């Protein structure tokens, strides 16, 4: 210690050092780095978890929406021919030779179906052309043009060659085009999809509309309940809170199927109305398997997501504020509007954002109770994931949905401010 003091006395005042002679600045930095490392190690499991289960899958999804090498990977020679020859080149003998060789090897490797499926996405009815010609390909002899055309004269179709050229590029925007009801014609120009197949834009609109409506309904129903919960004495409010939480803890499927039991044509609600003479047997109300079913069931299921943030914001608001406003002459409406409501805004914002974003992505409930008119865009994503197995299109629609939600989130941040959000 004596040495250090001596050193300090001798050194210029700008250069502070620690007891062991190291500059204070670097020693401090090192100590802080150590603490930071330790803190980082603490959050590392969470970070890894989020990267593995959230960021990577989303990246993968985005990649899949623009990447599909079903054709390029399995038809290498023909893909090369497309690279070597510019758009508009008539397929010649060398093209057919490449086609024949690729068909043969793809048929042997059992990947011909993948190729056919990829082309079939863009041009319907071509899948079996690939599989059937693939079966004959092992017997092809030169000249290949003649051999392939003899196997099936559909191979001469210029539209087919145009489509094959398009899909020979593994990276494509076609799935995104399809996700917003656009398509490419044979020359590669972007055009509207045929009218009888336009569905996605309409479903996006419907999804946002219904999610907005559900958010509004949740707010309308949830606000008074949250207020009641926040102002009642604790022993009553706890009991009420359980009534809110109980359905929240119940399985989603159970709640949805309960709504089926209640709302269906021969269900509890209709039967009661008929029994009390309000309705007759012929005028039973169709409350399920349509949009109404989706709205009722989803409002109920999402209601706790509105009540809980509202409650957590309302609870600490001192009742004396409103009383003070009233004593200063404000009407009850003015006191509510000017004093109480502004203080609950962070809760309204949080609840509305939660309900809306959850609502936009809901699919089990609309699938079960939505019938035809209550289907949302997520049902089509599920359809392409599970039925048509066109995962690239599913990824593209999901990416559009994600982008739309991010835009709304950004708007929300600009208009209301994300700092102004209180979840609890």
């Amino acid at each position: 210690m004596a040495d250090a003091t001596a050193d300090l006395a001798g050194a210029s005042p700008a250069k502070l050092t620690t007891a062991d002679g190291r500059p204070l600045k670097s020693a401090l930095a090192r100590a802080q780095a150590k603490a930071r490392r330790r803190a980082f190690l603490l959050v590392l499991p969470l970070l890894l978890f989020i990267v593995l289960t959230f960021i990577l899958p989303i990246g993968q999804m985005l990649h899949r929406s623009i990447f599909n090498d079903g054709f390029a990977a399995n038809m290498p020679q023909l893909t090369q021919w497309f690279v070597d020859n510019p758009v508009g080149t008539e397929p010649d003998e060398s093209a057919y030779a490449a086609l024949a060789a690729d068909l043969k090897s793809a048929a042997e490797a059992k990947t011909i179906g993948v190729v056919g499926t990829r082309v079939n996405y863009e041009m319907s009815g071509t899948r079996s052309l690939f599989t059937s010609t693939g079966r004959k390909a092992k017997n092809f002899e030169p000249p290949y043009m003649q051999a392939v055309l003899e196997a099936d004269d559909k191979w001469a179709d210029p539209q087919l060659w145009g489509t094959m050229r398009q899909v020979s590029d593994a990276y494509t925007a076609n799935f995104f085009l399809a996700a917003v009801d656009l398509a490419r014609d044979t020359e590669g120009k972007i055009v509207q999809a045929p009218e009888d197949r336009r569905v996605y834009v309409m479903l996006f609109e419907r999804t946002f509309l219904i999610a907005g409506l559900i958010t509004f309904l949740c707010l309308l129903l949830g606000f008074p309940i949250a207020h009641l919960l926040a102002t009642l004495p604790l022993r009553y409010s706890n009991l009420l809170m359980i009534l809110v939480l109980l359905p929240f803890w119940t399985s989603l499927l159970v709640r949805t199927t309960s709504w089926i039991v209640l709302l269906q044509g021969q269900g509890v609600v209709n039967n009661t109305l008929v029994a009390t003479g309000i309705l007759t047997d012929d005028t039973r109300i169709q409350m399920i398997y349509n949009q109404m079913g989706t709205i009722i069931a989803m409002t109920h299921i999402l209601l706790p997501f509105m009540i809980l943030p509202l409650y957590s914001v309302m609870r600490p608001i001192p009742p004396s504020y409103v009383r003070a406003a009233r004593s200063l002459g404000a009407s009850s409406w003015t006191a509510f509007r000017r004093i109480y409501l502004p203080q609950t805004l962070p809760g309204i914002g949080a609840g509305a954002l939660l309900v809306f974003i959850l609502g936009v992505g809901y699919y089990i409930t609309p699938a079960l109770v939505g019938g035809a008119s209550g289907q949302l865009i997520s049902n089509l994503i599920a359809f392409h994931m599970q039925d048509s197995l066109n995962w690239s299109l599913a990824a593209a629609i999901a990416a559009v949905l994600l982008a739309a939600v991010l835009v709304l989130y950004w708007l929300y941040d600009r208009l209301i401010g994300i700092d102004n959000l209180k979840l609890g």
Partner: protein
Amino acid sequence: MKKLLILSTALTGVAASTASADVTVMSWGGSYAVSQVEAYHKPFTAETGINVVSVDADNPATPIKAQVEANNVTVDVADVEYADAIRLCDEGLLEEIDPAILSAAPDGTPAMDDFLPGAVTDCAVATIVFSTVFAYDSSKFSGEKPDSIADFFDTATFPGKRAMRKGAKANLEMALMADGVPAADVYALLETDEGVDRAFAKLDEIKADTIWWEAGAQPPQLLADGEVSMTTAYNGRIFAAAVTEGKPFEVVWDGQVYEYDLFVIPKGAPNLEEAKKFLTFATDTQRLADQAKWISYGPARKSSGALVGMFMDGKTEMGPHMPTSEANLTNALASSYEFWVDRDSELNERFNAWLAVN
């Protein structure tokens, strides 16, 4: 990367396979799965000691594709429709099945001659012939009963809601037959745009009155709840509800669309040897005949036909309830897998668009 895919595509809905060498069989659930458990799984376990786990899916072809592509196969044997079997096989997602492992008929007829035509393909072995039919609740119609496919679309004469499978397959065929197209011309007509338009125009007539089902167990439920008065359904499901539960449901065979259901082995099945053993066992003459004791689907082997007798209640003759019985085939259509492997995505896309627009 593969592992990530497994995590991210959590859509298989299947419990992880168990550690021991159990055979996991994925099927369609409901009374159909029960018939398989009784006719195949239990006797197989009794004979070999290999446990069979039965899991359900709305359409097993979907999880199979997802599992093989994600390289996380938990299913050893799956029960799929014909078009899906062909499609998955062409995409290299299924193990090829050597017909030599199939057992011969009791009289020595080789398996390949004993199975019905087309019932054994490169990757799949048919077990049953099932049919999409329409059925009605007879208590809802006191006077005239529906007896033709056209009646299904006639809500003026036969009021009440309808239910149909949510998808293009079988619905388009039935719509055309109801519109007066002979069964033999249906697929030729559906190849044309006019034909498809005509089918959708026919569906338009009942669109507002129709509820769309997805799982095979739903239609009997919708009928039982009184939610609909008529529904299309897999014939075995209606039979099960009518005979075992005594529901007043009647099947109308006019305009039925029948096809095979097949067993496949997904590529990379964890217990391949056991799966093959199971396949050999389950598709022998006796097993296929036994299944008809539990559900009214026709066996895919000629030699099984003669062994089909009574339903398990011991008093219901199965013959008249089979899709393949002579009387039920007067106006019937064999589903065309060639048509559906090609047109499935296009027509379903159009179907979805049609459905979503009010």
